[in-house]
């Protein structure tokens, strides 16, 4: 009976990003409830490393793979390897174009970007200058978010995106680039950021420039410090993505698969925009 | 009259404020050995570097076989038939002897007229053959870094000999060689002269010049002061022309000996003992272990030396122990004693940084005073302490190393060929310094390839053969070059 114990392999895109840390927590929690083992590999946005990791998982004998593919095409070799080993492979958060993808549990990044843009536009009355601090160049999630945002903003003739940089998801960079953005455009109405860490840095710069309340900062992910910042008014908006839930759903879907159920191709996980109005309900201690 | 094989006309070369060469003209005929002599820093190496394509002259022309040449790199000079053995050893330590010797033109294996890779067998054969002429038979595949300094010098000479060249330039080739190798080398040079090769020969061993050279050009402060033919010059005349002074005559008084300064406590075949006021010489052929004795006492050899220093037992496993015990060493390889990229001042102070530490930090003025005094004492030229050591002439570099230990005020000096590449006047000066050092109660262990130097300077000479003491001679019993030569088996 011991050898019957199911081991599933997990290959997320990063191991140092709160989103993926929570996702892995969800996966582990659900797997434990089912009595499964979890084997992880990490890749930190290196596609080849992710393919290699999935290969290693398969060599290790896992029964299924949960993957957060770094790129929609780039890691298709990992899906091929799973297909060759005849095991299911489910994409979490990001999706793949591979025909061998069993299921995609995803978020609609462009849609979220559009919603942030619309929310921001409403807050600033459809007028003014906007800066964008986008995540690392080339990472599709951040590119999609930013594209959605830009698309939606283009519909407001009074809004101009006057500043845009791409770079790492660090708080330090948030401070530095927001400082520069505020020097270049002291009358900035809003700063879009791709993640809460950049956002919290940007908030610091806004406060230091005495623009609190006048320059709105929007974040992404809904991590606890960001929620606190929304509550005390520094951060205007963040988006709760429920990564814990994604992890759980991913494992549930695998369990369904093992029971022989037919899976649909794609499941979207709902997201929630969090601003001052609804932040109290989301605070972690509530 | 035939065309000179190489001719330099009206060469001027400045380095910043220093005029290394000032309107120098010079030529060498096919089948002639033309010696170039002058004090340290006179400009000899600079002149041959210009001939060899390393430097471009500021003014003046170079002619090879009557053709004006403008070399922009050594490569072009080599292609024009000029082979040089530079003063500083220039070999690639990681490569084998054979490869180093073939470096400029590696021989190719041919099949059906096509080159199909290196001809290693030929490289080895040529290396062996060339070195055999110098009576040196190493494994040609041995990396050069595993050779002792003197043997590397032989490889460098072999490298130049191997090339078929019209002009051969040797810049102090014998500085680290023993009489045996030197005799061999002269034999080879003589044969090449007969074959019509033009040879430019630089040395501070003036007796060599007298016996070897057909013609001699004397440089002083970057100018030609005299050119004379064989028979027209002797050592005294050369010294007079080089320095503008009458040659020093060397007085030989024996200083009185004091207490034992250093004594090895392990019994060994090459154990040493040194008393205050004593200059002990180490004589031996190439590879006899002179260097090893000195290195051991300085803590650089793998096995630590166990010694009594002024009666106190010490274990020397690291130079810092040796220096702390009052020992300084001038290594046989000049480059090991100097930080080439740093100033003369920094190099002189290298071993005595803690001496000038005061509570307020580093005592610059005291340090500068010491540096100035020592540069004066040792006549280090030019007298610019901020100049990088790499910009000094070879002989002056050698004096900087000595100055380093005088600045530290050590009790015991271990000297490995300390006067190699040093001009006659400076050599006499260094000898006087060594004698003075001993007179003030210091002890000196002097390894030298110059037997004359040992005979003049030492109270005792220990002859080494294959790492053992094979003879011990006292000044009181009479010391002479011939006697030493017999003792070391040369």
């Amino acid at each position, binding site marked *: 009976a011991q050898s019957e114990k199911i081991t599933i392999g997990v290959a997320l895109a990063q191991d140092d990003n709160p989103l993926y840390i929570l996702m892995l927590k969800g996966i582990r929690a659900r797997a434990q409830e089912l009595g499964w083992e979890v084997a992880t590999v990490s890749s930190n946005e290196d596609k080849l490393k992710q393919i290699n990791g999935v290969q290693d998982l398969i060599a290790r004998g896992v029964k299924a793979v949960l993957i957060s593919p770094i790129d929609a095409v780039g890691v298709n070799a990992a899906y091929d390897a799973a297909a060759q080993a005849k095991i299911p492979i489910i994409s979490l958060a990001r999706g793949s174009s591979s025909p061998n993808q069993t299921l995609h549990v995803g978020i609609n990044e462009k849609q979220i970007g559009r919603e942030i843009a619309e929310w921001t536009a409403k807050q600033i009355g459809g007028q003014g200058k906007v800066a964008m601090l986008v995540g690392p160049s080339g990472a599709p999630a951040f590119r999609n978010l930013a594209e959605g945002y830009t698309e939606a903003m283009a519909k407001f003739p009074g809004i101009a995106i006057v500043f845009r940089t791409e770079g790492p998801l660090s708080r330090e960079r948030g401070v530095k680039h927001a400082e520069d953005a505020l020097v270049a455009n002291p009358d900035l109405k809003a700063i879009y950021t791709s993640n809460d860490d950049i956002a919290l840095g940007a908030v610091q710069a806004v406060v230091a420039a005495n623009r609190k309340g006048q320059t709105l900062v929007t974040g992404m992910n809904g991590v606890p410090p960001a929620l606190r910042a929304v509550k005390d008014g520094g951060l205007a908006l963040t988006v709760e993505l429920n990564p814990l839930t994604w992890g759980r759903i991913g494992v549930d879907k695998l369990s369904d698969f093992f029971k022989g159920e037919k899976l649909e191709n794609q499941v979207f996980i709902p997201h929630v925009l969090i601003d001052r109005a609804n932040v109290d309900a989301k605070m972690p201690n509530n | 009259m035939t065309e000179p094989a190489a001719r330099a006309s009206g060469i001027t070369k400045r380095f910043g404020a220093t005029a290394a060469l000032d309107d120098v003209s010079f030529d060498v005929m096919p089948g002639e050995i033309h010696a170039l002599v002058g004090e340290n820093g006179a400009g000899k190496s600079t002149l041959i570097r210009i001939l060899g394509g390393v430097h471009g002259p500021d003014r003046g022309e170079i002619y090879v076989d009557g053709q004006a040449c403008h070399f922009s790199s050594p490569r072009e000079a080599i292609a024009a038939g000029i082979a040089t053995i530079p003063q500083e050893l220039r070999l*690639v330590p990681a490569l084998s002897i054979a490869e180093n010797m073939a470096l400029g033109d590696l021989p190719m294996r041919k099949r059906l007229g096509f080159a199909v890779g290196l001809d290693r067998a030929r490289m080895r054969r040529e290396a062996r053959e060339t070195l055999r002429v110098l009576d040196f038979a190493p494994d040609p595949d041995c990396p050069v870094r595993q050779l002792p300094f003197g043997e590397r010098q032989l490889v460098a000479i072999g490298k130049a000999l191997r090339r078929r060249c019209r002009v051969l330039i040797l810049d102090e080739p014998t500085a680290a060689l023993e009489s045996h190798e030197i005799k061999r080398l002269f034999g080879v040079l003589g044969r090449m002269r007969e074959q019509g090769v033009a040879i430019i020969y630089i040395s501070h061993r003036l007796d060599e010049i007298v016996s070897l050279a057909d013609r001699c050009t004397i440089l002083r402060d970057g100018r030609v002061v005299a050119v004379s033919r064989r028979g027209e010059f002797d050592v005294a005349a050369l010294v007079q022309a080089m320095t503008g002074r009458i040659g020093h005559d060397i007085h030989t008084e024996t200083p009185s000996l004091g207490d034992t300064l250093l004594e090895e406590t392990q019994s060994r075949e090459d154990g040493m003992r040194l008393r205050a006021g004593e200059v002990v010489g180490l004589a031996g052929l190439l590879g006899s272990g002179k260097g090893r004795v000195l290195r051991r006492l300085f803590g650089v050899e*793998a096995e630590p030396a166990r010694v009594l220093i002024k009666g106190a037992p010490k274990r020397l496993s690291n130079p810092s122990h040796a220096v702390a015990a009052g020992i300084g060493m001038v290594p046989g390889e000049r480059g090991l004693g100097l930080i080439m990229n740093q100033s003369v001042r920094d190099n002189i102070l290298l071993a005595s940084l803690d001496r000038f530490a005061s509570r307020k930090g580093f005592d610059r003025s005291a340090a500068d005073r010491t540096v100035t005094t020592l540069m004066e004492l040792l006549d280090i030229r030019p007298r610019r302490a901020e100049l990088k050591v790499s910009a000094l002439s070879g002989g002056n570099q050698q004096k900087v190393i000595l100055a380093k230990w005088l600045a530290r005020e050590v009790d015991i000096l271990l000297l490995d060929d300390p006067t190699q590449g040093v001009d006659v006047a400076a050599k006499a000066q260094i000898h006087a310094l060594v004698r003075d050092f001993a007179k003030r109660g210091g002890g000196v262990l002097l390894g030298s390839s110059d037997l004359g130097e040992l005979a003049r300077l030492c109270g005792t000479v220990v002859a080494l053969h294959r790492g053992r003491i094979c003879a011990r001679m006292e000044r009181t019993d009479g010391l002479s070059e011939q006697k030493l030569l017999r003792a070391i088996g040369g």
Partner: protein
Amino acid sequence: MSWKQTAAQLHVRGLTPLLTLLVLCAFTALATDRFLSPLNLTNILVQSSIMAVIALGMTFVIIGGGFDLSVGSTVALSGCIAALVMVKAGLVLGIVAGIAAGVLVGLLNGVVIALLGVNPFITTLGTMVLVRGVVFLITAGAPVGDEGLPSSFVAFGSERFLGIHYLVWVPAVLLVLLSWVMHNTPHGRRIYAVGGGRDASYLSGIPVQRVIASTYVWCGTLAGIAGVMLAARLQSGQPTAGEFYELTAIAAVVLGGAALHGGEGTLYKSVIGVFIMVVLGNSLNLLNVDSYWQRVAVGAVIIAAAAADRLRWRR
């Protein structure tokens, strides 16, 4: 200190990379029987292939006494250009264009470093950043060839010839070829000579600048080939590919016994260095070591491997 070393010690020292690799393999094979499964061994070969090609190029530069931080960006550039051209002008032109891009980057590095005499670290750091910018510019930051690269190209990234992946054949053939160049041509020996002593080589009539420049061209070319291989493996040109490859490649070369001051190094040992890095990652994955602990283990093993080399070597 250098003068304490003897021939015998050197000989033993030369074997350390191989011994390290064997110890690592033995350890993992004992810990999990999956390590020696044919699937896993194949995986290791394929996983090593691309880095091996890069490490070969890096070995040239390091033997020549240089340093190249730009290989990661070059890999991305070649891959993206290969994919871009391939989509428009077909397989062969795509591959040629990809490799040519690598040659060009190598030439740029070589000219700046050898002819202008600029420090290699700072030059290649500059090209690393610059080339990455160019990659993003020409791809607008998005992967290239998502709509499908030629199927033969994709097959090259995943299929086998004589039971061995095409991707593995490339470094294998290159290793044999380049080892011959390194040891049996004057060009190869000159690289060793220049790396081991610039002044001595210059005075021996070796065209030092040209030799140094050539090492960067080799490195760029091989990074270009690696970029094309990576594009085949990723079935697309990825603008973010190759980050940190420079550090991995240099680490592999140094673990393979090359000296960063130049003049020493062997191509096949650099490949062993790559295997050490890959097998290490593979073992940690097979043993399901937590990813944070993996970092600790990788760091510790790198240091330990290098230290073992030194400890054996001292008396």
